[in-house]
């Protein structure tokens, strides 16, 4: 059964993309990452919250906090469509999304769904965005 492995394979085939688990790669958490975590905890009281700063895999300067992936497991998602769930997440993070965060991959699951598949999916490799080549400032 296809899951995040589909995109995961795209990542590995296209060449490894370094998906750092923290904004600086040194283990410290940047202010945007901290804010995202705090706001999602406040808004959704999640059972599980896995947040990954993926900016390191994109054409942005080191230390950026622009691309994130989040898995939120919350009973607040019960009965909500995927679209409604994602909108709840967006609402909680409206300030960050209006600011420097311009990519947010979301896995919004109920506790039962998470138990079936307790894994943070992988994002596909960056294809440069508006930059001609990766790393161009």
């Amino acid at each position, binding site marked *: 059964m296809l899951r995040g492995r589909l*995109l995961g394979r795209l990542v590995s085939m296209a060449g490894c993309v370094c998906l750092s688990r923290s904004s600086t790669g040194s283990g410290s958490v940047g202010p945007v990452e901290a804010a995202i975590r705090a706001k999602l905890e406040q808004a959704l009281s999640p059972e599980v919250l896995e947040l990954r700063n993926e900016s390191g895999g994109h054409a942005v300067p080191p230390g950026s906090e622009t691309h994130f992936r989040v898995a939120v497991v919350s009973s607040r998602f019960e009965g909500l469509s995927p679209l409604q769930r994602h*909108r709840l997440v967006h609402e909680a993070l409206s300030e960050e999304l*209006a600011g420097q965060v311009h*990519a947010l*991959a979301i896995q919004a699951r109920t506790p039962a769904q998470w138990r079936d598949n307790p894994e943070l999916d992988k994002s596909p490799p*960056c*294809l440069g*965005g*508006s930059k001609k080549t990766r790393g161009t400032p």
Partner: protein
Amino acid sequence: MSGSLGRAAAALLRWGHVAGSGVLRGPGVRAAGSGAGGRSAEQLDALVKKDKVVVFIKGTPEKPQCGFSNAVVQILRLHGVRDYAAYNVLDDPELRQGIKDYSNWPTIPQVYLNGEFVGGCDILLQMHHNGDLVEELKKLGIRSELLDAQQDQDSK
């Protein structure tokens, strides 16, 4: 279904690796009409309703410039959806912001089916996994090629 999806997934991976090559006919890459005087809600409403399948992406289906946008393109390709409108927001900053305001959705890519906003890459991928995309395409009169792949599998 899983067998055919497995083979289809393998095909997807090839396409994803060499995106755009070997496609004889592809989706209509549209210009949203530069100089058309802004991106009013009415204009965007008309745009998303003009075609059955409409996506707003970074880059083009032949040359996506964003991994998430590429995933949308590859999923549509996997289902054999060739006739869709693709708007490159990197070419048009007004469109890029306008479509976000229109859908009240902060990111690109954005997928519209039958004029209705469906979601971004994550949601399309979810719909692809759980069969919803096949059903939604069927409602639009589009038969997913994955069904043909499944029939081949079943007949063996």
